[in-house]
């Protein structure tokens, strides 16, 4: 591609299953990975619920798509921002969320954390630094 790479940010603010936004947003992130832009993903407000461990959807008859988040590292999505205030408001800690990792080929495939816990103010700085913001 002749154009400069852009900083793409996908922002997730809604809980999974109650509406389709969480899943259909994830589909955009996965497809978008092929376009070789500088990608980041944010989970804030009810979006943090998307990353909760132990989702069992058998009783509601919906596909459990939460395992897909674990694959984000394989799609070279290594910058996943989770907002601290959103977790705290909801009585959650990082321990409640999936441990998302990526493998750094420049360091012998060392496993690294993808999740970056940020305050609202820090998140504001991150968003300000982006070129394109996707919301669902």
């Amino acid at each position, binding site marked *: 591609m002749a154009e400069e790479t852009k900083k793409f940010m996908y922002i997730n603010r809604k809980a999974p299953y109650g509406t389709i936004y969480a899943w259909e947003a994830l589909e955009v992130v996965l497809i978008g990975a092929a376009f070789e832009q500088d990608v980041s993903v944010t989970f804030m*407000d009810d979006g943090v619920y998307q990353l909760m461990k132990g989702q069992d959807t058998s009783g509601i008859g919906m596909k459990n798509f939460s395992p897909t988040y674990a694959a984000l590292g394989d799609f070279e999505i290594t910058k996943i921002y989770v907002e601290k205030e959103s977790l705290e408001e909801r009585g959650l800690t990082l321990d409640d969320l999936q441990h998302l990792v990526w493998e750094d080929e420049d360091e012998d495939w060392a496993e690294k954390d993808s999740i970056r816990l940020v305050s609202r*103010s820090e998140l*504001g700085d991150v968003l300000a630094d982006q*070129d*394109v*913001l996707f919301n669902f």
Partner: protein
Amino acid sequence: MSMLHLVNKSPYENSNLDTASSIMKGDDALLLIEDAVYGAVKSGKASAMITGRSVSVMGPDLAARGITEDKLADGVTVIDYAGFVELVENNDKVQSWL
């Protein structure tokens, strides 16, 4: 670099306006459209969220909802869709708080 924050839901319905107004930076602009225009009414509690920020509100949406301009908080600019386009021109990117 500045951002245009777009909010379309009433602050009495959900926390989108609260989130937008608390995360936006000094140079950023805030545009209230659709049901979010209720947030610009001076007598409403939510108008406190927009104090001190650069806030525009969609005139056609105010009129549709029977909100006259004298009811608005101080410092709010009433614009139309052409003004919306101008805000998009003048800010580097748009953040829609959905």
